[in-house]
């Protein structure tokens, strides 16, 4: 049975082109890019080429605005902790209630150390309360960190508007772009964004590499201290094979961007429409008019997400759930709770997230299996 992988917001398969590009750096070209000798030093140009590829994908004006890190979480930590500590006086930290833990974690860390923290609400469609944000950013100099697109629902936030509001009051704007980069077109040089985080393994590079865009002139205190690598922003010998892989993955993502927004989006839409038509008591979570092209989050009344997920898994289909039971906590996903999703369905949400590697067959498989699973679990449920 072929695995149907529809959990690409969790991680993605490594592209063949990426793996092949990495291989020479795992075999012959293992030198240290900081070395004075030719054997090591020759590697540096590949790191710099990757920097240009990342800069090109997100539309940065200068490749030097890209710093390589170990993952998206490190980039978020660097932006928030390093950004706040570099400001003249402790900023008011503003974020949203639906951020990934990689952002809310460092925000709470700063709050514990005396920084003022405000978390902006979302409405029932997962859209940011812009009026509340405007009030908050006006009141003081802020470091605002709001994600570009939500990992659970795919809802896209208006980063241009947010950035303009933050800048008007003299604040700094970071956006967690981990889910957005490679899925929607962007040109950060033309946007009021000071910092943007991205992760390799969400766009077909391996796990263990990420990057952060830091606009020229933005001050950030490094988290990892030591050598002069990455212009002093992140000490540690460069992870050359993975950086090269990330560069190639960014190239591929740029190439596939159109397909992502046409073929992938069409598959997502067909799956979504099909599920809503064949599974009574199902509904989409999130604003469908402003969403990533690859993500759908669907709730099923009166049945529980982990049970759905494990039955899908039994049939070779990989997805994810915001249910409490699956995470080991007792509360369902903070994103769905922030959206006030109804009690009848908040525990029964499933996220399907596509990549360009998915096919129409994958959609067919889910549409064959899922209605049977939903029916079966409803038969078990005391509420139906």
């Amino acid at each position, binding site marked *: 049975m072929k695995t149907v992988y529809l959990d690409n917001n969790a991680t993605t398969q490594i592209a063949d082109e990426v793996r092949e590009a990495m291989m020479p750096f795992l075999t012959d070209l293992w030198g240290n890019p900081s070395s004075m000798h030719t054997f090591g030093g020759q590697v540096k140009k590949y790191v710099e080429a990757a920097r240009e590829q990342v800069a090109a994908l997100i539309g940065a004006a200068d490749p030097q605005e890209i710093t390589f890190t170990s993952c998206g979480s490190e980039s978020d930590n660097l932006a928030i902790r390093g950004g706040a500590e570099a400001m003249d006086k402790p900023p008011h930290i503003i974020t949203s209630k639906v951020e990934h833990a990689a952002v809310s974690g460092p925000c709470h860390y700063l709050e514990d150390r005396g920084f003022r923290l405000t978390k902006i609400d979302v409405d029932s469609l997962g859209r940011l309360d812009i009026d509340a944000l405007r009030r908050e950013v006006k009141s003081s100099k802020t470091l605002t960190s709001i994600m570009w697109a939500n990992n659970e629902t795919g809802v896209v936030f208006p980063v241009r508007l947010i950035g303009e509001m933050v800048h008007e009051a003299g604040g700094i704007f970071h956006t967690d772009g981990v889910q957005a980069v490679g899925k929607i077109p962007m040109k950060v040089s033309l946007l009021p964004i000071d910092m943007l985080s991205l992760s390799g393994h969400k766009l077909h590079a391996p796990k263990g590499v990420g990057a952060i865009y830091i606009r020229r002139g933005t001050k950030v205190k490094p988290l990892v201290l030591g050598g002069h690598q990455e212009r002093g922003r992140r000490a540690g010998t460069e992870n050359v094979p993975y950086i090269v892989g990330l560069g190639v993955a960014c190239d591929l993502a740029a190439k596939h961007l159109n397909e992502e927004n046409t073929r992938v989006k069409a598959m997502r839409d067909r799956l979504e429409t099909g599920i809503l038509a064949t599974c009574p008591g199902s509904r989409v979570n999130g604003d469908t008019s402003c969403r990533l092209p690859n993500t759908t989050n669907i709730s099923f009344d009166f049945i529980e997400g982990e*049970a759905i997920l494990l039955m899908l898994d039994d049939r070779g289909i990989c997805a994810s759930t915001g249910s409490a039971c699956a995470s080991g906590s007792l509360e369902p996903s903070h994103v769905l709770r922030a959206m006030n999703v109804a009690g009848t369905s908040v525990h029964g949400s499933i996220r399907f997230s596509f990549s360009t590697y998915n096919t129409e067959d994958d959609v067919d498989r889910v549409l064959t299996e899922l209605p049977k699973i939903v029916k079966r679990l409803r038969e078990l449920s005391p509420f139906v």
Partner: protein
Amino acid sequence: MWDYTDKVNDHFKNPRNVGKIEKPDGTGEVGSLACGDALKLMFKLDENGRIKEAKFQTFGCASAIASSSALTEMIIGKTLEEAEKITNRDIAEYLGGLPKQKVHCSVMGREALEAAIYNYRTGKKWDKALEGEVICHCFGVTDKEIERVTRENNVQTLEELTNACKAGGGCGNCLPELQKIIDRVHGEMAEAAAPKKKTLTNLQRIHLIEDVIDREIRPALRQDGGDLELIDVDGPVVKVRFRGACSGCIISEITLKDVVEARLKDNVSEDIRVEEVK
């Protein structure tokens, strides 16, 4: 990814006794949609007062469904007096164990059984709020339930308590109150288990000291990453060595007096003095 046993997976994928019974003798309903799991259990008795039929409907995760299915299999053929003795640990053991975060699924099973038996005996719908005072308002858990779960599962920490009955898993406002209940139950359990403080032989005395250290002192130290080793017993003097985070801890002297010596005085004899061997 949960490490479910084969038996849990089997009862999840092929649940036994799903459905409803026409005119049941007893019905128990526990949990709610908002809490994330709920179970409705029904049973019918035969002429000898044994459960001849049991059916369930469950809203919940794989282990909730498996626990419900297991429960029905366990009670069929039993008298109500026998069925009543089933604890949540029995249900978990029947399934070959549950992940620690899922222990509450087995507690839900035992509660549903209790509710169904209550319904049979009184004709009324069981309401756990009548059985005590609600302490955790997020999940509606009463002091009686917390005490019972603590006792039956030998719950040591707040985390274990939340895993077992969800109490404290929401806003967290009740955590101090929960800690008090855990402490009280342990006090009662220790009192019940406490040996008569009279003439012990040397060997009995040493065994008791070992037992108190293992049962009462080490679990407390381990919560903070520390540990303790018994080195020697010389008359009233008990010699111990701290391990892990306790060794070199700046407050280890306080721990020595307030925890180790205090517990041994309470449980073994008043004249005990504890000395640390470095």
